[in-house]
């Protein structure tokens, strides 16, 4: 355990929120389309002023992901991306860039690594926390303990189907930030942000005081802008990868600039 006064994930987010109303979190699947492309994407994120980046460790059974990320997971695995490659990239990214980094991945990877080594490796790679969509809070007690010892936060997930009692339970475990899924289903489809999202976010707000991120179907600068005043972090996943595949580096930078402009 470190004894210096490292700020928490929540503290870091609050610091950034002092300057602007909304933060931007982006995502990439490590190794897709390639590690070299990932680095160019990360440079672009940093240049655009992205606040937070989710770095996904590929898994063979990604049940919370939609078709685009499923394909990304499987292609990254086929290209030989394992823990070694993952932590090499994440450590370099945390050291080189000013955004914060989070682990995203499935529980089997964490389980096979072991809770303590997992937390240790994340901390060593300079990451601030982790999002594990198939690990419910009631199964994560041991992992959270090791996380705390390493100044890491488990990002909890709230959904529109969560009952008030469930939101309260998730809220009790929340630290760092909460990931609010703007709709049901998996990643990769459009969400109509006027449909019930403000009411849902109000329910999340009631359940926790940590910063709220909103993801699932956030694709455009307008989507991001629509979250101002409702949430603290706009989370853009599939749309980023799609922009890279469609428009290469120029198209990617263009989207990132527009998204960041949407936060200001």
């Amino acid at each position, binding site marked *: 355990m470190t004894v210096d006064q490292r700020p928490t994930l929540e503290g870091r987010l609050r610091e950034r929120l002092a300057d602007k109303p909304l933060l931007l979190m982006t995502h990439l699947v490590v190794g897709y389309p390639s590690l070299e492309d990932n680095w160019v994407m990360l440079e672009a994120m940093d240049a655009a002023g992205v606040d937070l980046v989710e770095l996904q460790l590929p*898994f*063979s*059974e*990604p*049940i*919370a992901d*939609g*078709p685009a990320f*499923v*394909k990304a997971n*499987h292609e990254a*695995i086929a290209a030989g991306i*394992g*823990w070694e490659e993952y932590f090499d990239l994440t450590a370099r990214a945390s050291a080189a860039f000013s955004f914060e980094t989070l682990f995203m991945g*499935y*529980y*089997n*990877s964490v*389980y*096979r*690594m072991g809770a303590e080594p997992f937390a240790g490796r994340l901390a060593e790679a300079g990451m601030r926390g982790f999002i594990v*969509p*198939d*690990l*419910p809070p*009631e*199964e994560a007690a041991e992992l959270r303990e090791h996380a705390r010892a390493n100044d890491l936060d488990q990002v909890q*997930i*709230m*959904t*529109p*189907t*969560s*009952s008030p009692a*469930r939101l309260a339970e*998730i809220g009790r475990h929340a630290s760092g930030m909460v990931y609010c*899924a703007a709709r*049901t*289903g*998996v990643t990769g489809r459009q969400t109509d942000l006027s449909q019930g999202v403000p009411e849902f976010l109000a329910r999340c707000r009631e359940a926790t005081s940590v910063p709220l991120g909103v993801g699932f179907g956030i694709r455009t600068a307008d989507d991001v802008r629509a979250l101002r005043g409702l949430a603290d972090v706009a989370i853009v996943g599939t749309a980023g990868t799609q922009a890279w595949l469609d428009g290469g580096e120029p198209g990617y930078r263009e989207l990132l600039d527009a998204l960041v402009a949407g936060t200001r």
Partner: protein
Amino acid sequence: MTAQLSMWEPSPGGYFGEFGGSFVPEVLHETLEEVREAFEAARRDPGFWRLYVDTMAEYAGRPTPVTFCPNLTRQLGGAQVYVKREDLNHTGAHKANNVMGQGLLAQRMGKKRVIAETGAGQHGVATATMAARLGFECTIYMGAEDVERQHPNVFWMEQLGAEVVAVTDGTRTLKDAINACLRDWAESMADTHYVMGTVCGPHPFPQMVTWFQSIIGTEARAQMLDAAGALPDAVYACVGGGSNASGIFAGFGEDAGVELVGVEAGGKGIDTGQHAARLAGGQGRTGVAQGYRTVFLQNDEGLMHDTYSCAAGLDYIGVGPILAHLGQQGRIRFESVTDAEVVDALRLAMRTEGIIPALESAHAFAAAVREAPHLSPDQRILVNQSGRGDKDIFTVADALDDEGWREFIRQRAAGYAR
């Protein structure tokens, strides 16, 4: 008269020893709670089990018989061989039981639509018949590779009114179809029930599917006492996900003198890596995927392996958590048999008794054939014939390497060619 399943009772969180649990995206949390509550209520309602048994009698042909096999017994020269005939169910396999049970439950829950994964197509066809009968919309997810290999079952599912979606992710097989179902359900849960086809997945599926399939074991135990005047010394069942095995074992769980033998797919041999033996070969490792913790065939970093079996229904990375637990406890012994042994056992069953086990079920026969000669003639063994092979004529003919069949197909194809 519902089955007593105390060994199949989970501890809090849906655990059986260290296996089981519920590891799903948060969006499905309440949905699984709803299924758990509906299942618990149905279980406490004696009328529900009666409705299930009556429906299976009227619609599906239950109870299925236990058949004594004198010729096979003589040929093997050891224990007396009895066979539980799940092949005689409507649609030709034990899958019909679970499907109707979950269909009746979905009706109680007021659902309008059912979805299911299928490997070979057996569970998909069974689900499609149930959906037609009970009036549900029905979508079946099937790996694209399986869609190509098993067109006859796709044909029947579509004729029965189901939509069949070919899943093109991953290895394009059963496990990918399960992932696709979980993704559909994460969006459709308000009006849709996921009819999981085996004793895997998040709590309560392992327990619930075991409960419905326990109809096999409950019948078989009484039938053995009737026919032989005694319980069997050992019961053999093939293990894919584990539902037919769980079902027949459930009837004998409390009978300490009855050995339970689960038979996994040894494929081309455990050493070749081309198999689906998670428990028998010692190559499986504990992990968490597809919503539950069990023993999976995976690499050091938790990525799932490609599995292989001549029997599509056994070709799966994981195994029911209850079976994994009872294996660890020593209550169930796990064995594996190779494709070659399976083909021999299939031929033997057909020639000696005129019964036609599915390739999956022939795994249980193969283990019985291996072990029966070492038992004494006053001992009895019971083999679960989980399904019939005659309707899988394409795959069975391939497994038997039959030239006459190949020639027939060539001529038929030439007839269709323009």
